[in-house]
């Protein structure tokens, strides 16, 4: 195996990424060219044959006219776009050994996970590199370099999975892909070009890290990092266009005929809410994955230096994950508000219909995330001298966090037999049933966020003693702020029980604003109060128990599972529609499965993802070893 290590894997990352990037572009270009130039394509003719709409009324003259119009090319005078096809079961190709929906589902989810990861990492790498440059602390630079190294193989996997997904769309859902390409073909070409730009910037950014490390060249390096993020973000918002169009189509008429204005099709009602939600979620998810990497390295570390380094890296990654996680529910509110605004029917299907129970699973996942993140912070206080002052507060925080979790977890309708329903007097528990509605859940999640922020504040204060003259007043203001905020959140929650549902949903906004006010004002006050604070001792990095590291794995797996679940519900809300209300899914799989079934697919996808992430880490680790060997000899 030695020759493999010395020869084959030398520069493996670069070769691997280049190859897959080229393959992806090739796949992508071919899949775009084929459907767009459909008149010239013979091999796909049977698939496209179903797409032409039946002439209305069967009038021969009209049909002939339609045929001639269909022959006109896009851009020519008199050209009209085709309506969304009306497919039958037989129009969906069957590839033996594959269930089209499951195959596309898993590959799309894997592509999204890796895509989220490689879009998120460069964001915080750029910030950390910038912090390192500003503070002249090389540790930040090294950590940023290690973060981006971890994402390199993931970048290749994202590209490969994107190519595979495109092939699957063309193979399993050719009419759907052709319809989408007929509207978004141009954006797909731009997407491929942007991908090329992103790859270019990433390679220079990563491979030029050591060479562009001083003076002006460092600024050039940072600029490349910025460009990498610009390309990445543009790619994300562009691909969100397709997903949001499928949920809430715009720029088309009732029959799905494209008006010809691409901007109308792009700026659908859900585009920006999805953009924001994915952007924030990507950061949280990316942070949790590199946190798992750091935890693994910490647990495998042989020296105290290594332990200290990876402890610090794990802490930073967890900070990033929580930083992204806290505002996520607010972005979720906005998305759901827009979903309701677009289609009340879709909104109710999500929150009160077939998917209502899915949000109980979500509550369990988010509860695990909050508990895991807080547990990690509390463990972290153990490595800080002076934290003893705050440890008594932890037990109260546990009570509040677990209490909020239980409220969020309480379902509205209970699972009961007919006999039990008679005994209880209904499907709702007489007392606990009232905790199952949104008023209680919104209150619980806001209090959860405020409590987690308080945990973080205590952690930050652990080894500091404020020296500002107004410290007592500042502390009193903060206590008053937290108390008043909590009372307001609870009051609004209780008030919600006494007003109609359509007005009640509006109360989530003042609740969220209260939470944000507490966080922002407290952070500002803390910043001033602890400026020039006296230290009670340094943070002893590396002095963390092994159990704390498992909390980081809990976060990574839970985030992955949560993304899989929410990705499923976002897509499943379309129900039996490829493109909601205009392009019906008439395939054999056009039914909504049970949540247990969906959970099974998500779990399988999570396992594949974990296996691929391990592979990516292994490559990154191997590359580090080679680097260390090269510098030692």
């Amino acid at each position, binding site marked *: 195996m030695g020759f493999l290590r010395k020869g084959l894997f030398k520069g493996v990352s670069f070769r691997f990424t280049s190859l897959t990037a080229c393959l992806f572009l090739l796949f992508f270009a071919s899949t775009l060219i084929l459907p767009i130039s459909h008149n010239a394509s013979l091999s796909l003719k049977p698939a496209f044959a179903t797409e032409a709409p039946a002439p209305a009324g069967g009038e021969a003259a009209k049909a002939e006219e339609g045929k001639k119009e269909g022959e006109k090319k896009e851009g020519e005078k008199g050209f009209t776009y085709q309506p969304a096809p009306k497919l039958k079961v037989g129009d969906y190709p069957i590839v033996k050994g594959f269930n089209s929906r499951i195959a596309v589902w898993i590959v799309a989810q894997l592509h999204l996970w890796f895509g989220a990861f490689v879009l998120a990492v460069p964001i915080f790498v750029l910030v950390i590199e910038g912090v390192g440059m500003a503070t002249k602390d090389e540790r930040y630079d090294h950590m940023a370099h290690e973060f981006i190294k971890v994402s390199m193989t993931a970048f290749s996997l994202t590209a490969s999975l994107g190519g595979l997904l495109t092939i699957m769309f063309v193979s399993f859902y050719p009419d759907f892909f052709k319809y989408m390409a007929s509207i978004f073909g141009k954006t797909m070409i731009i997407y491929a070009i942007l991908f090329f730009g992103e790859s270019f910037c990433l390679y220079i950014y990563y491979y030029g890290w050591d060479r562009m490390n001083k003076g002006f060249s460092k600024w050039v390096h940072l600029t490349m990092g910025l460009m990498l993020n610009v390309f990445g973000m543009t790619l994300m918002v562009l691909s969100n266009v397709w997903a949001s169009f499928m949920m809430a189509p715009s720029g088309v008429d009732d029959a799905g005929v494209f008006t010809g204005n691409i901007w109308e099709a792009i700026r659908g009602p859900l585009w920006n809410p999805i953009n924001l939600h994915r952007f924030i979620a990507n950061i949280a998810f990316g942070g949790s994955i590199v946190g798992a990497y750091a935890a693994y390295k910490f647990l495998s570390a042989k020296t105290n230096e290594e332990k200290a380094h990876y402890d610090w890296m794990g802490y930073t990654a967890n900070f990033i994950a929580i930083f992204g996680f806290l505002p996520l529910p607010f972005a979720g509110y906005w998305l759901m508000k827009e979903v309701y605004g677009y289609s009340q029917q879709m909104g109710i299907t999500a929150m009160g219909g077939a998917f209502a129970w899915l949000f109980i699973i979500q509550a369990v996942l988010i509860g695990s995330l909050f508990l895991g993140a807080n547990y990690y912070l509390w463990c972290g206080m153990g490595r800080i001298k002076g934290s003893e002052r705050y440890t008594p507060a932890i037990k109260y925080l546990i009570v509040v966090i677990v209490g909020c979790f239980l409220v969020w977890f309480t379902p509205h309708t209970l699972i009961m037999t007919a006999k039990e329903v008679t005994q209880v007097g209904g499907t709702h528990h007489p007392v606990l049933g009232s905790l199952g509605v949104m008023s209680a859940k919104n209150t619980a999640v806001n209090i959860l966020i405020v409590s987690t922020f308080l945990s973080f504040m205590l952690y930050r204060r652990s080894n500091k003693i404020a020296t500002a003259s107004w410290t007592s007043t500042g502390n009193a203001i903060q206590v008053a702020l937290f108390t008043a905020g909590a009372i307001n959140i609870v009051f609004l929650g209780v008030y919600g029980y006494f007003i109609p549902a359509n007005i009640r949903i509006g109360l989530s906004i003042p609740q969220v604003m209260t939470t944000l006010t507490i966080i922002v004002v407290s952070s500002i006050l803390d910043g001033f109060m602890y400026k020039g604070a006296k230290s009670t001792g340094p943070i002893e990095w590396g002095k963390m128990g092994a159990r704390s590291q498992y909390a980081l794995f809990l976060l990574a797996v*839970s985030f992955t599972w949560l993304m899989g679940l929410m990705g499923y519900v976002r897509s499943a809300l379309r129900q039996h529609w490829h493109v909601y209300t205009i392009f019906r899914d008439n395939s054999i799989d056009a039914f909504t499965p049970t949540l247990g079934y969906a959970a099974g697919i998500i779990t399988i996808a999570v396992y594949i993802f974990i296996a691929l992430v391990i592979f990516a880490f292994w490559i990154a680790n191997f590359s580090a070893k080679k680097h260390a060997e090269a510098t030692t000899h």
Partner: protein
Amino acid sequence: MKVFIRIVIFSILISMAYWGFSNYGIPQVIPELPPVEEQISGSMTMDQYIALGGKIFNGKGTCTLCHNPVGGRAPLLVESGKDGAPIGARAADRLKDPQYKGKAKTAEEYIHESMVDPSAFVVTGFGKPGTNDTVSPMPNINKGSIGLNEAEIGAVISYLQKSAGVQVTVKLPTGPAPVAAAAPAEPQSAKTAEEAFGKHGCTTCHKIPGIEEAGDVGPDLTGLSGRAGKTVKGLIPEQYVMQSILNPDAFTVKGFEPGTMPADLGEKMTAKELEMIVKYLLEKKG
């Protein structure tokens, strides 16, 4: 390596826990199958037509998502409440409302208009936020994701009028449903379950109790009534048989190949035939 194995096991267990909770911690609600266009013909009686309206109202029409006593998102339609009598009874009064600017002249037309042009009159307090009750959040039910045809809308109106205890003014459709007009001839429903089995070729592959002709490509359906409720967890016998017909690959009996049974029976079979077949299979002890 020990650390690696521990981490992998830990991650697998966490994921398994979430999977377990999703399967055993919450009820497995089986979402309804995608709606199909109802087979409406002139041979239908008014009672059947009204019953069909009720089925659409509570199912495909998705009306009860909002028009229910729990959410308060839309006025109640079949029950009396703070909005007054059921819609069938109060429709005539709406026409006299000074704010009414629609085109309807009769109660029936008003209900029809409220379905196909919901913003023609928005009940106070039920408009889209910020529109001062000028725009309704309700979708046009003859378009988009619901897309009822005129005959189906008529059925819903007849149901609403019947529920309110007023005279049903809707006329029975005299021919095939309007949308079905462009399609080939409307399929005639079989008169008995035995006839339906023959029509759809069930006996070519299955052995069915009480029917001589039998095949062995698919499972023997003798004694199905005894096992239908135990085969797929969470499915009652009727649901299991219905799923097996409408979505045969959702569960394949051990020893048989998936994809063998035609998946388009749901499109070819009339609702009456499906009902007869399910009933027959679950009643015949064979």
